[in-house]
């Protein structure tokens, strides 16, 4: 069996688990089951779910915030200030939510089945000029932030402006946006760190959720051995991803120093202000809106919290 896998951009920390998965699966099946990973050749990044639904390729990665209406249920994972504090917790909550029947049902409408997540750390912002370390300074700030993050910044007067990730550098340079919210690897691979004067070390407003899915028909057409090889490789692929991302995070402080980027710490008082406006009200609005559409929103939100508690208890 050969699977086509649709991802986008360049090979980076964000896609390493997919390469690892392909490697493991090929190894375990003695070369019977291979994956051909294509960066942008098979689909546009916002249309990967469409491609899965059509059956054009068998596996793909996408991000919930690119098109919330396609994947309403998992947008719970992009709510601001969920309280996820590291990548292990991010994996735990993502996989718990992916296993919820409401998510499975929504994905089945795209003929898709959740396989694994692509855990990312908190999306802190880089900016130019004077550091913005008070909530009042977010008023009128043009920020590249999608999904729930965008909503959080909107709540404090910011204006989300979504240039594509590859245009983020240019957008910063030309003043189309003042700040860009990315995970560290993206600040590196899209060059926004080169343009930045400062980076918020502890704003931690939330993150973006980007699952990897497989086409249900293709999954079911696998031989038992192949399916077993795929399922059993997920944890190992994620472990590899976490290790690799961990290395990147360790180097991060050196990168900041080398590029002369100021590490901005925001006071607890200011953080609390941001959380008051950008946290609970957005969560409540989300629960109300999603419940009205028949999605078990409260249940999903509670699932995130119980999973977080469990994850912390076992560590």
């Amino acid at each position, binding site marked *: 069996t050969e699977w086509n896998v649709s991802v986008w951009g360049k090979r980076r920390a964000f896609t390493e688990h997919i390469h690892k998965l392909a490697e493991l699966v090929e190894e375990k099946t003695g070369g019977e089951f291979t994956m051909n990973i294509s960066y942008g050749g098979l689909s546009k990044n916002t249309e990967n779910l469409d491609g899965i639904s059509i059956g054009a390729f068998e596996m793909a990665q996408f991000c919930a915030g690119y*098109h919330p209406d396609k994947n309403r249920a998992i947008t719970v994972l992009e709510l601001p200030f969920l309280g996820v504090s590291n990548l292990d917790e991010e994996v735990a909550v993502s996989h718990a939510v992916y296993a919820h029947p409401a998510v499975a049902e929504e994905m089945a409408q795209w003929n898709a089945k959740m396989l694994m997540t692509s855990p990312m750390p908190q999306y802190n912002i880089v900016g130019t000029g004077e550091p913005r370390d008070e909530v009042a300074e977010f008023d009128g700030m043009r920020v590249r932030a999608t999904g729930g993050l965008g909503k959080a910044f909107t709540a404090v007067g910011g204006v989300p402006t979504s240039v594509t990730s590859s245009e983020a550098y240019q957008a910063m340079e030309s003043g189309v946006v003042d700040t860009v919210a990315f995970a560290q690897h993206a600040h590196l691979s899209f060059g926004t760190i080169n343009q930045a004067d400062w980076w918020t070390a502890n704003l931690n407003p939330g993150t973006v959720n980007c699952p990897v899915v497989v086409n249900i028909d293709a999954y079911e057409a696998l031989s038992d051995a192949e399916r077993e090889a795929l399922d059993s490789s997920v944890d190992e692929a994620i472990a590899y991803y976490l290790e690799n991302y961990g290395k990147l995070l360790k180097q991060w402080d050196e990168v900041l120093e080398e590029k002369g980027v100021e590490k901005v710490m925001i006071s607890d008082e200011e953080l609390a202000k941001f959380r008051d406006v950008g946290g609970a009200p957005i969560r409540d609005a989300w629960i109300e809106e999603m419940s009205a559409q028949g999605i078990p929103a409260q249940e999903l939100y509670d699932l995130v919290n119980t999973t977080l508690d469990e994850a912390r208890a076992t560590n």
Partner: protein
Amino acid sequence: MAGTASVLEDGSLLSRLDRTLLKLEWSMAFVSGLGAFALMLLAVWSVGGRNLFNEPLRGYVDWIQAAMPVIAIFGISYVQRQGGHIRMDILVGALGGRALWLAEFLTTLLVLVLMVLLVWGTWAHFDRSFDIAKPNWSRDSSIDIGLPIWPAKLVVPVAFSVISLRLLLQLWGFGRAFVLGLDRPVAVPLVQSAAEQAAAEADHMQGHDT
């Protein structure tokens, strides 16, 4: 190309249908042009708001992405009517009479098959983003302000349906020219421009005078 409509007209049913469809096609092209104009105004609003009032236009990128299919695709049939999509006419330009009409008929038939298939494909693309049971009927939304995307996606199969009608008329025109062995059929774009035809005719007349 731009500006020359080398499509002949007369009182036949085919030509009347051609002109009826042309009215629709022109309107659609005009809407495309209005879209380009709106894009300009949108940028002025966005830049002005940002630099003068510190109040940038929310969802600027989303609105651009919604407008682009209207600008770039909606009027496609008008361009086909005017023979405006470019092609290499060295070979067909050398043909004449029935051979020419046969070649035109065959390539037009292929394009019709293509466009009908693409109506299906682009409709499916629209259909995946549309769900009557959901708020705003939306199952696909834009990144910043959550605009439903289905209206912009619907533009494409609509435009492609109109060009399919146009291609049917052109098939009729070329087929008629082939069967009847016509020199100057109506309702189809001619390789030679109308002005060239007129000039050729004028030369011809002079030849008779002297």
